[in-house]
């Protein structure tokens, strides 16, 4: 491929090839300070023109790579960075078999990890990123990796994708950590945020999980906490996992142990201050 970027995020290494220079330059800036993979890359992502002439004429980026699913509309070249991010997500969702992959945000404090999962729009990603700016170590906002043998949560601190309204919550961060503004994407306005230096420096350190939260965001919601039973938590986590079924018995073992050992709570909140207060009150030993 003409332009290549290799990226290590937690235990996973990616090789991203692009026919165009721009997406790779943007990746390089966004992921400045990340380590270069040492040897094998687990997954290959390719950004290439869907048809030969679409490389120049109204260029549009098809997302390809080791693992693929039925055809979707390609993205305009202006959203090439988003295409790269989606390409990495896709490889993880379909190809990651060394961890139980949970669609969840995770943060760590005092050596213990908090896992937050829920529908997109439930605020787990924003909440994870915010906590990561306020004394917690950010471990990831998109995927959490549960070790199949060690039962630990392994960090996967990719860039956070901030959407629409949530952008305003991060006004205070160093501008150098922000990616370009991507307007008109299928998910609206998107801007990526590089995790802070601590999150990057400690991306190799897993943490013992201590609490599972199922947050729900709604402007009209009263703050509330509900206990979630292990059976319900198990069910919800299988639906939040892209590879639970594929992992077979190892997935069953890891997840039953996980939900059996940890408290789970559903929380409702109307703004992030409420959410932070709820998290603090629920954090074991707080």
């Amino acid at each position, binding site marked *: 491929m003409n332009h290549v970027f290799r990226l290590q995020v937690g235990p996973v290494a990616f090789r991203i090839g692009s026919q165009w220079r721009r997406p790779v330059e943007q990746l390089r800036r966004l992921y400045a300070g990340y380590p270069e993979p040492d040897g094998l890359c687990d997954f290959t992502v390719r950004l290439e023109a869907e048809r030969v002439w679409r490389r120049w004429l109204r260029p549009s980026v098809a997302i390809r790579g080791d693992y693929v699913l039925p055809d979707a509309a390609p993205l305009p070249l202006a959203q090439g960075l988003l295409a790269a991010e989606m390409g990495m997500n896709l490889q993880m969702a379909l190809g990651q078999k060394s961890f139980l992959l949970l669609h969840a945000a995770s943060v760590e404090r005092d050596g213990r990890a908090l896992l937050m999962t829920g529908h997109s729009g439930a605020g787990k990603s924003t909440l994870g990123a915010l906590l990561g700016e306020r004394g917690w170590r950010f471990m990831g906002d998109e995927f959490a990796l549960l070790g199949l043998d060690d039962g630990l949560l392994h960090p996967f601190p990719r860039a956070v994708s901030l959407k629409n309204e949530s952008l305003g919550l991060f006004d205070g961060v160093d501008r150098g950590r922000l990616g370009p503004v991507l307007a008109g994407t299928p998910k609206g306005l998107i801007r990526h945020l590089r995790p802070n230096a601590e999150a990057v420096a400690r991306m190799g350190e897993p943490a013992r999980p201590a609490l599972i939260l199922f947050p729900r965001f709604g402007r009209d919601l009263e703050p509330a906490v509900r206990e979630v*039973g292990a*059976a319900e938590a*198990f069910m919800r986590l*299988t639906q939040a996992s892209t590879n639970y*079924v594929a992992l077979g*018995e190892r997935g*069953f073992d890891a997840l*039953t142990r996980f*939900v*059996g050992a940890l408290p789970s709570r559903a929380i409702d909140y109307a703004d992030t201050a409420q959410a932070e207060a709820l998290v603090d009150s629920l954090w074991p030993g707080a």
Partner: protein
Amino acid sequence: MAASLYAADPPETLRIVELEGLTLLYHRRSGLTHFLAPPAPQILEALAAGPAGAAGIAASIGERFEIESEDPAAAIAARLAELEAAGLVWRT
């Protein structure tokens, strides 16, 4: 039809974890996880002794539990159909 005998995979090929009164079952042969509510786990237990029909299963469960049903054999037959669709039992 009423005389159909059902069989199930031997217990050692099933992984069972109890969570809050529900039975979580991993079925090695299919690689699938099922949530079972009573009386499905009891039916599988009854079949561990060998193939049986709905009436026989009802009788064997009746030895261990107080059954709350007007027509236990019919109720068991309905549950067997579900277990059959999930591949956990089959007709011999």
